[in-house]
């Protein structure tokens, strides 16, 4: 603030002390010099003493002012302390508000997500009966869990059959041009077990590098198996599948089955 202000009591006191020092030096010099040797125009000792008494009076007044100022300063310090406390309170409050803001924004974000999910669910309603029916169909095919009496060679397989794989989304995705070879390899992927059981003559004669033959192989011996599976899983669709031996038709079948499953949704 105005620490160096000209009117400060400190400055006045220091000036008064300096005045006293100068006056006393002069006084002692005059008094210690014999009267004949004194320089002309030198002040009388009484004048200097009078000046010193006046300065002492001023110092006393200044000290009284300083005493009052010390009290005021104490009030100022107390006020500063209180202001600092309020600042601290405000900082703590600000910190708490910030934390609350974070918590609330997270909660709002999660709530919005839940609302979106609820709206989505409301848009695509599905009856519980249909859901249970579908669950029954899944579990009836033993695709979720192997039956307790399962043995090697048992057609009730605890994994999706080729037919089911072709009916699913993966097969649909593989219909895209980039993924065609992958699908075909997938078609022959499920075969080893069937091959072991019933190796067909077409498989032996045809080189495996030809990708389109993988699907032919699947068609060759998977026919009976698929028909049994199809009848087991999809009833009429399985019998439909029996008559077709072309790859294209298999793809049509897979789209049929997917459409039936999508209709379940």
């Amino acid at each position: 603030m105005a620490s160096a202000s000209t009117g400060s009591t400190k400055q006045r006191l220091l000036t008064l002390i300096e005045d006293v020092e100068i006056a006393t030096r002069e006084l002692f010099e005059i008094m210690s010099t014999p009267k004949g040797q004194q320089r002309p125009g030198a002040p009388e000792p009484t004048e200097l003493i009078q000046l010193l008494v006046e300065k002492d009076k001023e110092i006393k007044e200044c000290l009284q002012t300083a005493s009052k100022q010390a009290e005021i300063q104490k009030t100022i310090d107390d006020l500063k302390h209180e202001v600092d406390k309020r600042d601290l309170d405000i900082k703590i409050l600000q910190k708490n508000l910030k934390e609350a803001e974070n918590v609330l924004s997270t909660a709002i974000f999660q709530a919005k997500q839940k609302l979106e999910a609820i709206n989505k669910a409301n848009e695509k309603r599905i009856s519980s009966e249909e859901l249970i029916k579908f669950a029954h169909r899944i579990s009836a095919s033993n695709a979720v869990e192997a039956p307790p009496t399962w043995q090697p060679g048992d057609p009730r397989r605890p994994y999706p059959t080729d037919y089911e794989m072709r009916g699913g989304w993966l097969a649909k995705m593989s219909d895209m041009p980039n993924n065609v070879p992958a699908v075909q390899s997938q078609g022959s992927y499920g075969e080893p077990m069937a091959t072991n059981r019933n190796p067909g003559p077409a498989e032996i004669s045809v080189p495996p590098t030809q990708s389109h033959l993988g699907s032919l192989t699947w068609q060759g011996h998977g026919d009976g198996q698929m028909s049994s599976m199809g009848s087991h899983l999809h009833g009429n669709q399985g019998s439909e599948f029996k008559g077709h031996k072309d790859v294209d038709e298999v793809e049509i079948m897979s789209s049929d089955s997917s459409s039936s499953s999508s209709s379940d949704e």
Partner: protein
Amino acid sequence: MANVADNELNFLPYIYDIIKSIDRDSRDVNQKIIDFRNQLLKARECVEKMPGIQYSRQDQRKQIEILQKQLTQKTHLIQKYKSLQPFQEQVETPMHQ
């Protein structure tokens, strides 16, 4: 502090003593003058340490006004935030339970 300052800045007894010594032509005048100079130094140190005198009274009054204004504003601000509705509900809820 005021009493200490009164003692430290009371120069007249020292001056009177030195004048008497000069009148008597005493040998210890020089020593007394040195003591007096030391006293002046002490007085200056004492003035440096006195609280609040670096400001004028007018400046101090201004400072008090500013601080009181700040204190009022900050107290109001805290009260305002504490009396916000969500906080009030939070304070009241445990009491209802």
